[in-house]
């Protein structure tokens, strides 16, 4: 099988598993991010500012660990572009650690300003805040240098895509939405970009009407065009493992009444559109989603795949037998267990969750730091899942 055929066969394997079809084996989409940097013998600061080094870490990972998909093919956490622009102190990294300082771009009173003209708002409010005093000092030369670096980054992305797909036969997880960029429900935009956890939590109590206005408008202006494209489109796109991916994080701060008010009505319209077209959507649920399980119980098999973080996958299967599961392998075990313990748990996951389809093996957290997994455990698990026949 050449790489292209391998890629297509893996897409089919992921699709079958997500559609609860019996498969010969359980596919493994490795939820590995920067852990592979350490595993390849580099440090974060070396890899995140050097495309060649990051590429070597990806090659090392794919040469060492047999997997069917890789969450980050070396294109996240690249700081060349922002370094060229002068950073700004909103992120930090060193040999072992990378992180971003939180910035809330709006207050509840400026949400409409953002929606009125996001570009103007970014230019006049977000960027000056992000880059501090240095924002005013960006010369034409700095912009040129940054643009050149950005183009290098684009070329690097194409190169990595060609390498992972064309050489290793790895499929991409999901396409961008029919418009541009990711599918982002309104509450997620509020939590991750515009208000942050603190402000959103307080606003849900203190200014709920303003949030109602925002999520309504966000849905009308951003989500309905996507929903219309889905409804008028051709349905599943078999170039990818899933037809779409969504991140859910904001539900973790909401009580049921708040979820019912601010989140569910609009999310339901989006999910219904995917269901209507027989499309499969992966939802990465950070934290826990189990307490909202009843909202998802009526979708037919083959529409939803939840990538679980904190939820017990066996309890989840019991609560939502109609929803495929991605995840299961805990970083606790990968970092503290023995290869034998890890393989025994991986076998249990495959046997109990995957024998009739509906299970994609993955790690419950994005493997990011050196001690998130022992290499010998990762290797034992990857080999086992690759070789094990159901």
């Amino acid at each position, binding site marked *: 099988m050449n790489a292209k055929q391998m890629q297509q066969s893996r897409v089919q394997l992921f699709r079958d598993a997500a559609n609860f079809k019996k498969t010969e084996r359980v596919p493994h989409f490795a939820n590995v991010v920067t852990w592979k940097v350490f595993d390849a013998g580099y440090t974060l600061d070396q890899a995140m500012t050097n495309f060649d080094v990051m590429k070597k870490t990806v090659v090392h990972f794919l040469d060492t660990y047999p997997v069917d998909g890789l969450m980050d093919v070396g294109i996240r956490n690249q700081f060349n572009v922002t370094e060229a622009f002068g950073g700004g102190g909103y992120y930090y990294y060193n040999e072992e*650690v990378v992180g971003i300082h939180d910035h809330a771009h709006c207050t509840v009173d400026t949400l409409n300003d953002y929606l009125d003209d996001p570009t103007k708002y970014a230019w006049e409010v977000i960027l000056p805040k992000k880059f501090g005093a240095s924002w005013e000092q960006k010369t034409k030369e700095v912009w040129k240098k940054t643009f050149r670096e950005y183009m290098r980054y684009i070329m690097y992305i194409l190169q990595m895509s060609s390498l992972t797909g064309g050489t290793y036969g790895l499929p991409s997880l999901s396409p961008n939405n029919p418009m541009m960029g990711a599918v982002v429900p309104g509450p997620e935009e509020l939590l991750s970009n515009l208000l942050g956890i603190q402000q959103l*939590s307080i606003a849900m*109590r203190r200014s709920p009407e303003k949030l109602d206005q925002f999520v309504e408008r966000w849905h009308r202006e951003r989500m309905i065009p996507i929903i219309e494209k889905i409804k008028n489109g051709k349905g599943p796109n078999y170039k990818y493992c899933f037809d779409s991916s969504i991140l859910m994080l904001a539900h*973790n*701060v909401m*009580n049921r009444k*708040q979820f019912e008010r601010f989140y569910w009505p609009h999310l339901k319209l989006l999910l219904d559109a995917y269901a209507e077209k027989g499309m499969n959507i992966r939802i990465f649920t950070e934290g826990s989603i189990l307490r909202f399980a009843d909202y998802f119980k009526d979708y037919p098999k083959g529409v939803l795949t939840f990538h679980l973080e904190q939820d017990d996958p066996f309890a989840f299967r019991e609560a939502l037998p109609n929803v495929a599961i991605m995840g299961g392998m805990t970083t606790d*075990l990968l970092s503290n267990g023995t290869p034998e313990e890890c393989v025994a748990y991986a076998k249990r996951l495959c046997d109990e969750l995957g024998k009739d389809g509906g299970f994609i093996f993955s790690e419950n957290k994005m493997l*990011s730091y050196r*001690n998130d997994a022992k290499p010998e455990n990762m290797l034992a698990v990857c080999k086992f899942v690759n070789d094990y026949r159901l």
Partner: protein
Amino acid sequence: MVDFEALAQAMGELDEDTVKELLEQVMAEGGGDAGKAMDACQKGMDTVGKLFEEGEYFVGDLIYAGELMTDAVETLKDALVGTESAGKKAKMILCTVKDDLHDIGKNIVRSMLEAGGFEVVDLGIDVPPQKVVEAAKDQGISIIALSGVLTLALDSMKATVRAFSDAGMRDQVKIIIGGAPVSEDACKAIGADEWAHSPQKTVSVCRDWAGI
């Protein structure tokens, strides 16, 4: 005379307008009952904790409750100076461990611990193990709560527990770890005494340890 039962109830129901109105009334009456008002607010926070445990409230509600408590202290602070609201409090240390800058979870837990009768020595975020050990030693504190969000925080929690052992103090302190990455398995691997995802469990465990 302010109705302190009504104040406790309003705090429990997160009814900001009523809480604010009653606290302003306390101050308008001279502030002599500021201690009782603080006790009532803390009683209301117990209700918040119970409703969280029952699943009616969630994380956002705890953040909002913390905001109301902060505002309450701000309103009453001039009158609270020199008064004692609930007698001598048990002292404990709380921090987000080294290499982790997340503070929202820590701050929620802090509000709940303070409402639960603790004087919390909050060492902040990105706190190295040695600083925790020194604070415990200098202030004679035996209850330590370590918070973190990143999986990387588990390494720092382990290093902090080890630092207490290296200082010959491990038997003198009780250590609880909390935050998204912790679990029963992580607790065992780190060598902590307890672990929690919920602030209410943290309060309950620490109260048991403090005997309050």
